[in-house]
């Protein structure tokens, strides 16, 4: 699974996710990547989110939207909202995975409960950072 989240100069946020699903999956099995609110979500003024991991958990916990809701209704910063969903909800329920999340001010969070997650970002002045573990 791959994903991207972006914040442009107009202040608009966007998110996208694309996947081959899970290896050896059942014919017709669909995970969270094409499910808006589960694996992908973007709302101006709040955040953009893209997830990766065991899709069934991201769907059941409406993970991507839950991060936005925690920010909107509990005023959590993106870092805490993303961590709460990935560790306190998904991991606690046995769901493996991670997210990348970006708020409207350009704050970035990338929590994951697996051994690693391939992730990277670019800052406004063009600094690129890629991390795998």
């Amino acid at each position, binding site marked *: 699974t791959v994903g991207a989240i972006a914040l442009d100069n107009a202040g608009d946020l966007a998110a996208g996710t694309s996947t081959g699903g899970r290896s050896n999956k059942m014919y017709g099995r669909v995970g969270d990547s094409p499910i808006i609110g589960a694996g992908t979500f*973007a709302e101006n003024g709040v955040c953009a989110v893209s997830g990766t991991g065991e899709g069934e958990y991201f769907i059941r916990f409406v993970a991507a939207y839950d991060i936005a809701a925690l920010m909107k209704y509990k005023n959590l910063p993106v870092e805490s909202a993303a961590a709460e969903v990935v560790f306190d909800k998904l991991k606690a329920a046995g769901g493996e995975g991670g997210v990348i999340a970006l708020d409207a001010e350009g704050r970035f969070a990338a929590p994951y409960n697996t051994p690693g997650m391939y*992730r990277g970002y*670019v800052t406004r002045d063009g600094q690129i950072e890629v991390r795998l573990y």
Partner: protein
Amino acid sequence: KDVVLAIHGGTAGPKESLTPEREKAVRADMKRALEAGYAILERDGKALDAVEAAIRVMEDSPEFNAGKGAVFTHEGQVEMDASIMEGNTRGAGAVASVTVIKNPISAARAVMERTKHVLLSGRGAEVFATKEGLETVDPAYFWTERRWQQIQKVWEQEKQQAESLDRKNSAAVDQEREPWG
């Protein structure tokens, strides 16, 4: 703070499972994806365009489980899903269970921009994408040696499990068949 574009290439297994060659290839393609998206943002482009551009780079790379390099299903097929969402209008598009669309993320965007729907799946999504002029390919395009080896290993494990289960079951059945124990 001050991040304008971020990407992920999926969750990763134990660090030792990643060879130096693969790590180099993964890092290089992630950097290319970030550069493709940033080039759009830098010239005042839209976040939506940056997201699509970055994901297309990773779909075209054999290093990630999306597009070329996608994993195989139990039947040895490639079935892909994708979605995209823009924060200003909350517009969203998605495709699921597609097998011949070269860049599923672009099909998801076409669903968002050219239909009143959010999610199209299977043959319907593929017919729509073809009619809209999106690039389609023979499913063989998505095949990669690494993923093929991966699914072969899984099938071999399943076969061994089934055989050992058969042996156990047949032993159990024999046991039952011999009431004298």
